[in-house]
């Protein structure tokens, strides 16, 4: 019998699995020593977080956390335009964090048979947005006068993320990295495929390669209607992709690309549901993807712990 971690790693290595992998087979590790997770309101660690969510991220961008939305939004931007980045952006000093002490403090939490995961909440485009705002970031991608600075910033940022991810692997045995970077609107890409290829893709490729070099799994979280980019996402080497289910036809994508890519599909409840309806939702998902190699994620935040346990038992029978 595989452990949950083993089952997931077999899944990502295209080897036989004992059950359909599910996100409850993973353990999120988002320690508060990384200011990012406090700013974004997502700390997950051994000691319950008792502080205030929101505040400055580790680049100094301030975030407002809304408990109703269960998310954070930046309240100010660091730069007037991206040409200022070298002068004004102070990259976090990873050596200033006592990683070994953090590992000791979380030893019990991390002593698990699950796959340990972490998240980079701002991929390169979203980090650019946090620096100069969405509109300026979008324009910077196509403005010839700004593109050189954008490239230089993305290169430096990617190197930083690689170092961060290496440390998360070294000190905490993180083996699964989710990188958030939204590339789509409700009904289209935010930018053209050409812009993506020129401005985004080189750095995502570099990051994915570094993640793979560490023996880790790369999960892209990108919302919006980005189905046109699925071939690129596969080609860049991402191991799985999850995104907003309402913006794409996930089923069609699984049928079209599922033989050589692993999609994450979501059983979701935004409002509380009773156990019968929870079971029904999961069974429908399992029936839909009966013959497909997909990773099941539990979304929406409304399923109860006991319903999540029920889902675990249900997938173990697959």
């Amino acid at each position: 019998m595989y452990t949950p971690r083993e089952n997931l790693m077999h899944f990502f290595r295209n080897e036989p699995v004992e059950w359909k992998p599910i996100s409850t087979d993973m353990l999120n590790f988002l320690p508060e020593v990384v200011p990012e997770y406090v700013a974004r309101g997502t700390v997950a660690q051994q000691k319950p977080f008792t502080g205030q969510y929101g505040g400055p991220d580790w680049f100094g961008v301030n975030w407002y956390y809304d408990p109703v939305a269960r998310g954070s939004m930046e309240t100010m931007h660091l730069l007037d335009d991206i040409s200022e980045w070298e002068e004004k952006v102070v990259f976090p000093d990873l050596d200033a964090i006592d990683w070994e002490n953090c590992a000791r403090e979380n030893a019990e939490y991390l002593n698990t048979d699950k796959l340990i995961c972490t998240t980079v909440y701002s991929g390169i485009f979203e980090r650019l947005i946090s620096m100069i705002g969405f509109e300026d970031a979008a324009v910077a991608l196509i403005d010839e006068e700004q593109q050189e600075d954008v490239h230089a910033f993305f290169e430096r940022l990617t190197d930083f993320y690689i170092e961060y991810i290496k440390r998360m692997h070294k000190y905490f045995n993180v083996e699964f990295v989710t990188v958030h970077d939204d590339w789509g609107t409700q009904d289209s890409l935010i930018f053209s495929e050409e812009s993506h290829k020129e401005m985004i893709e080189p750095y995502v490729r570099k990051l994915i390669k570094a993640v793979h070099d560490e023996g880790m799994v790369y999960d892209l979280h990108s919302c919006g209607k980005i189905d046109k980019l699925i071939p690129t996402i596969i080609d860049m080497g991402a191991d799985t992709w999850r995104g907003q289910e309402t913006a794409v036809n996930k089923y069609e994508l699984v049928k079209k690309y599922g033989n050589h890519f692993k999609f994450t599909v979501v059983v979701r409840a935004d409002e509380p549901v009773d156990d019968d309806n929870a079971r029904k939702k999961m069974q429908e998902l399992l029936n839909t993807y009966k013959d497909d190699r997909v990773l099941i994620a539990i979304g929406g935040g409304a399923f109860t712990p006991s319903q999540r346990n029920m889902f675990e038992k249900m997938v173990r029978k697959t």
Partner: protein
Amino acid sequence: MSILTEIGEALERGKRKQVVALVKQALEEGMEPQKVLTEGLLPGMDAVGIKFRNNEIFVPEVLVAARAMSAGTEILKPLLAETGGTSLGKAVIGTVKGDLHDIGKNLVKMMLEGKGIDVVDLGVDVSGDAFVQAAIENEAQIICCSALLTTTMNSIGDVVKAAQDAGIRDKVKIMIGGAPVTQEFCDSIGADYYTVDAASAAICAAEILTA
């Protein structure tokens, strides 16, 4: 090619400096500011909206064009005020309570402005009462509200209710949009119009204001 056509084409390509120069040139040649706006800038932005809706161009290109439009209208504004030129009407816009997503909302705002509509942007996480208050204070004919999340879309209903409670329901049209929003949802909460994207929203708003 007429200078008005040149203005429209420069705007489509997002050439802000060129738009500014051409607008100034048109005025120097004695053209009425209203004509520069309605036959130069607005058709250019209309073309941008159509291309955006057809996925021929994307958000960055729309933004660049919108900035060119804005630079052009900045020159015209004082002259239009002098000559009695007016906007098509006024809309207040925001993302509903509990929702922090503003990208779609910002696009709609730009598209509305591209139609010659004055827009009061209330930002994100806006309560129903705040929408209504702003509509009253600004004498807006339209309230535009959006939600990206299934968990927050019900807050759109609060906007409709707040407008009813304030007694302004017959004075404003309520337009709604966002990823989880549908025509059925629009009907169910008693909003007036659902549009599927930013360009459609601008067309709809312009039709409301010219009806």
